[in-house]
């Protein structure tokens, strides 16, 4: 079970889990989203579980829920690089929509 896999890195918006043959990067913002298909994510060029999110007009868009990075081809630092890019994107988005009231 994916849920039971050991977490080797985590951020506010991601987990990296240790699978048998893959390092699995999970997008925490997509938790609970139904997996509709598993196919290659064209952006990262690795196998990904994908679901569909509907926008304000009701149009569905495919989004990756988790990516499977083969241990034969990727090491943790490369996966972490992708994870941190995602973390940065979501952090900026949160700042844009819910900025901290520090000042």
């Amino acid at each position: 079970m994916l849920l039971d896999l050991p977490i080797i890195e985590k951020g506010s918006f991601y987990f990296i889990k240790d699978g048998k043959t893959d390092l699995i990067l999970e997008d925490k913002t997509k938790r609970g989203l139904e997996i509709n298909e598993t196919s290659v994510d064209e952006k990262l060029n690795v196998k990904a579980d994908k679901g569909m999110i509907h926008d304000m007009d009701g149009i569905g868009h495919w989004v990756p829920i988790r990516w499977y990075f083969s241990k034969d081809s990727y090491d943790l630092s490369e996966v972490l690089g992708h994870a941190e890019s995602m973390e940065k994107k979501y952090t900026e988005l949160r700042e844009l929509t819910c900025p901290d009231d520090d000042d």
Partner: protein
Amino acid sequence: MIFFLNLGKTNKYESHFDKIMSYAHPEVLVDTEWVSQNPPNENRKLVEVDYDPVNGYQKGHINGASLIWWKRDINDPVTRDIISKKEFEALMSKNGITADTEVILYGDFNNWFAAFVFWVFKIYGHENLKIMNGGRKKWELENKDYTTDEPQLPSTTYVAQPPDEGLRAYLFDVSRGIGKEDTVMVDVRSPAEFTGQITAPPEYPMEHAQRGGHIPDANNIPWATAVNDADGTFKAVEELRQNYEPKGVTPDKDVICYCRIGERSSHSWFVLKYLLGYPKVRNYDGSWTEWGNMIGNPVEK
């Protein structure tokens, strides 16, 4: 009986025919086979109703079907409301529909939005109206053909009836109904939405409310309990009765259905009003995105 031409041919058809005839208003349903054998013509129009036309109608639809896009065509573009009588008349004209046209609706998402549009058609008094049982789901399970050709429909002149407000519940109707013995609320959302564990399924991040939970004393009878999981068709009348009556949702009550944005609840509204024949059923289309966002509204978890 024009809505089911295969009756009597085999036991399977007889059984299906018996099932449909046992509904209170069998005239509001057609099945996929009937639609495949009875294409649209001058007096009969087939309309696909989609929440997501990019992944539905535009990828393929039943030959001759026009499109009603729930978001664009049936909702006011600015105010949160259904379209006005004038806008409804214009929509009918665009779809080649007159007040006498037999209209068959079907759609994506288990016919939720087709049911919503059925409800709007009834608000504006269209009489000859049917739903294709099972919608796109059943049509696709049967590997029936789709086309991407869009029909060229001559515009018509359509005169709608004044809105029948008896089919619609507003916020104040719901507030007034709380605690009344003769009123029963049916919350057709998932148990997780009902208990407030989530405020919208993850697929719809734009449709959350500020508070989770349900309207006090509402019964949680998810829309899906009224359909057969395998093909999305409606359950038999006795199963439907058993689904609602033991929970106090009985024909003698004033029934108000709600969900998150009013589309799943129009599906249950259709079941209660047309398949079971309950005399007083209203759809609260403001639903949880209105109730759960209003300051001061009572919420139960």
